[in-house]
């Protein structure tokens, strides 16, 4: 292997090197500084006489006297089932003091695209025990469902609650199934404190044994963040499709990942896209998020829960926007709900699970599920609109029906959504509570639900609008 001492330029995370042999695009590079420190990087551009390298660990200490070695291969991760229970840094080196990892295989971390003909459409219901998710934004195995959060909101608590409670009800799981759950966690630019929050919970619940943790902390090199999720997903794919695990992959915080992309783009003097993020960020993110799913004839699955914090609480910011365009829905956290003390503060209206329809219904959850969910959405949306109106005209200006819709919205938040981070509700409970709050509404308001289910589950007063006693009660 040839060594070059021909660095011509160092600029931010980038290093330019003159070469006299052809170097492959995407190849891995080692850069050794005079002090003996070895940094790794990747070829971003290659031409006959020079290459541009992006250095993962930052370029401090790299100068023209550093030597550069091209390893002749793209970045690979050693994978094995023994990774379960291990904690690694953002580049895949163990940091838990455990034994050396003896790989089963070394895999390219970029990962090839799954051929759509080889996919199996995800439709196996995962019960998270959280009503706002199970009832209205159902998660299925193999889905990519991000949490859209913002600074100061409890996204970690929610992710942990999902990781703790996620289960597949017996009658939903394949016959005689013995497939196990595993968790792959990738922290990107998160604080030590946040990392501890996850690690402590994993340890307390015994989840660590079936987890693989990759940690790139806030004070670790930013460029490394671009490889951390790829390492995690390579591990997840290996566990799912070679070892047959159902893998829940938590990626946090995607905002830090995107910031690293922006930094590299700026250093390369690329034409920036919206708000300075690279024009290819959609493609780049898709190459991560699309690494979720199920394969025909394979036991395991990769389910992704990426977490991102929306800068300025703005869901049109490129990071949540591009994510939403790729993922199969999103769970949106609301600041207002959070300050009201609602736990988890899931704002259901802008939340969505696109794979819900095939994952619910008769024989899986319950036959009334879809109608109930639609009705909750429609009535809660109306209730929220009415709240705005009440702020202007006061509650007296509303007719009786509207007052009931307002009461419903109140009860919906207080009873259905606000269940606490440590309550695990099965889906029957969730739907029963839904009926409790829907029964506040007049029966003929429930136009989204089939009549037979209204007969079966509706518990409200059958009276129609115009009933005096009912009005007084509502106003009391």
């Amino acid at each position: 292997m040839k060594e070059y001492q021909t660095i011509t330029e160092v600029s931010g995370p980038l290093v330019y090197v003159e070469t006299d042999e052809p170097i492959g695009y995407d190849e891995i590079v080692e850069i050794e500084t005079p002090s003996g420190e070895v940094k790794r990087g990747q070829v971003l551009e290659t031409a006959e006489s020079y290459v541009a390298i992006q250095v993962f660990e930052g370029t401090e200490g790299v100068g023209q006297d550093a030597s550069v070695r091209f390893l002749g291969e793209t970045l690979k991760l050693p994978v094995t089932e023994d990774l379960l229970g291990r904690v690694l840094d953002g580049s895949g080196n163990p940091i838990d003091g455990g034994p050396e990892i003896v790989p089963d295989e070394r895999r390219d971390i970029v990962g090839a695209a799954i051929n759509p003909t080889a996919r199996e459409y995800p439709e196996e219901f995962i019960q998270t025990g959280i009503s706002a998710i199970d009832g209205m934004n159902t998660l299925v195995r193999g889905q990519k469902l991000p949490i859209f959060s913002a600074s100061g909101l409890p996204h970690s608590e929610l992710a942990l609650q999902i990781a703790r409670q996620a289960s597949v009800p017996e009658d939903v799981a394949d016959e005689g199934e013995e497939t196990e759950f595993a968790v792959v966690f990738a922290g990107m630019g998160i604080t030590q404190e946040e990392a501890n929050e996850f690690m402590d919970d994993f340890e307390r619940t015994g989840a660590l044994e079936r987890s693989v943790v990759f940690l790139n902390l806030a004070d670790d090199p930013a460029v490394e963040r671009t490889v951390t999720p790829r390492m995690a997903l390579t591990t997840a794919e290996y566990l799912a499709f070679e070892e047959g695990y159902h893998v829940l992959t938590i990626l946090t915080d995607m905002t830090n990942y995107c910031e690293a992309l922006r930094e590299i783009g700026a250093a390369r003097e690329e034409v920036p896209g919206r708000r300075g993020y690279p024009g290819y960020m959609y493609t780049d993110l898709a190459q991560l998020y699309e690494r979720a799913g199920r394969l025909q004839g394979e036991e395991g699955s990769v389910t992704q829960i990426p977490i991102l914090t929306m800068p300025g609480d703005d869901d049109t910011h490129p990071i949540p926007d591009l994510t939403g365009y790729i993922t199969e829905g999103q769970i949106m956290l609301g600041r207002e709900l959070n300050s009201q003390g609602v736990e988890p503060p899931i704002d259901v209206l802008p939340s969505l699970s696109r794979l819900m329809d095939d994952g619910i219904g008769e024989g899986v959850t319950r036959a009334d599920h879809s109608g109930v969910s639609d009705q909750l959405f429609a009535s809660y949306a109306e209730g929220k609109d009415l709240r705005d109106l009440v702020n202007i005209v006061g509650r007296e200006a509303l007719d009786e029906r509207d007052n009931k819709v307002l009461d419903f919205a109140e009860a919906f938040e207080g009873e259905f959504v606000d269940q606490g981070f440590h309550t695990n509700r099965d889906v029957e409970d969730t739907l029963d509570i839904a009926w409790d709050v829907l029964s506040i509404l007049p029966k003929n308001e429930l136009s989204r639900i089939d009549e037979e289910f209204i007969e079966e589950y509706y518990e409200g007063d059958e009276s129609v609008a115009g009933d005096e006693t009912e009005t007084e009660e509502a106003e009391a």
Partner: protein
Amino acid sequence: MSQTDTVTDTGEIASVSGPVVTATGLTAQMNDVVYVGDEGLMGEVIEIEGDTTTIQVYEETSGISPGQPVENTGEPLTVDLGPGVLDTIYDGVQRPLDVLEDEMGAFLDRGVDSPGIDLEASWDFSPTVSAGDVVEPGDVVGTVPETVSIEHKVLVPPDFEGGEVVEVNDGEHTVTEPVAVLDNGEEVTMHQEWPVRQARPSEEKFTPTEPLITGQRVQDGLFPIAKGGTAAIPGPFGSGKTVTQQQLAKWSDADIVVYIGCGERGNEMTEVIEDFPDLTDPKSGNPLMARTTLIANTSNMPVAARESCIYTGITIAEFYRDMGYDVALMADSTSRWAEAMREISSRLEEMPGEGGYPAYLAARLAQFYERAGRFETLRGEEGSVSVVGAVSPPGGDFSEPVTQNTLRIVKTFWALDADLAESRHFPSINWTESYSLYKDQLDPWFEENVAPDWPEERQWAVDVLDEEDELQEIVQLVGRDALPDDQRLTLDVARYLREAFLQQDAFHDVDTFSPPEKTYEILTAIHTYNDEAFAALEAGAPIEEITSIDAAPRLNRIATQEEYEEYVEELEAEITEQLQALY
């Protein structure tokens, strides 16, 4: 993609940056297909400057290095056309995805090429010409049963000269064997190749007069698209673009459907692959897949092939149009196509225009939609290509370049609305912003085939919805109770229009498809309620009692009734009875 073994010239890679590779020492012309590197990755020439040729590569370029060879085929990017295109799923350069899966497993590797149709498969050819007949380009020489639904017409290629038929070979043949030979030596086979970036020729373009029936109430009822028309569906993420397009692919009364998943989700394509074979085409009663071709270049597949998938799709659509079929093409999403252009353009360091898109964005969009239309084919038949493009505006903001440039071209605008989607009003087509410029020219068809007063009923609905819109502004200030009774009643009627007519559940077995007759019945049932309710109000019945009769909410249930005629008849009678009992 057709395969060529000829190599006209060989050069060497000079640089690699993502999907863009430069080569030196290569004699090439713009848009020539080349094979790049030791693995022979497929690419296309996109710029020539002095001795440097720039190539966009349709596969991942990891590990490719300068010095490796580049081979030029000397031919532009073409598609293979012939029987076998239907009921197939392709990537962006027309490689059949099932063939790729057989060769490389579940994950897409690179360096594998495959013709778009099976060149070895044989088909039963029935001639429609005999020796002595004179044929011209575009003429049919015979037919082949391509699928249970579609009779494939074997055409004299548009670039042939034509002449007298001297030999006809009926029976089983592979697509490369001649089925008709002309006196000038030209041999017609079932296989044609056509460069994707070039529109297939036609005789003339007409004004469309027939609707593409979508089976979706808000579209057929308020904002219809013509066969041969163009439509755009812009909307923020999660607003329903894909579901709307899939609904059209399932239920529209086109003969052929070309569905392009351009830079979108893998699972959405899988869903189509899994669902379509089991769904029945309402027109033929056969499996939907028998009239469908899918092109899937998902978001994580190479970006250059995302740029080309649109062209691959529209060329296939034109091919079936040339057989005299009505083809509907869905492109989800044209924004990803535009972004692919932007990405390649920026790697070429071209001067960026608005939003970083290349200056030729508007021209490319126009060229694409211009390939839609109702045409007279070369042999004087009629065929059409309808094009429906999804647009994914960043941040849901319609003022961005792709939406704006698209709106300058297309004639139907289905604007999706995040607020409607959030309250689960689907399809979330905003009825105040959307429009169809085909409305008037399609009215005669609806009058004749559905109901003579179709345009009047539609106008009534539009007026009520407009009035609701205005009233809502007042309600926001003073509350509903402050409105006079007649206006409160209008709000009530408008609500039924929204819930019983505009909303349609794509996932409900019955509601998913609403034939125009049903669409009309629902509308007139609401109109009946309106007329009876206003009559009751005028006769002095109290508004609270009028709006709380228990028959009216059942208007919302018509949509899910299979036997809707009977249901509507009874319901109208009951509504009338209950309202008349109030005075």
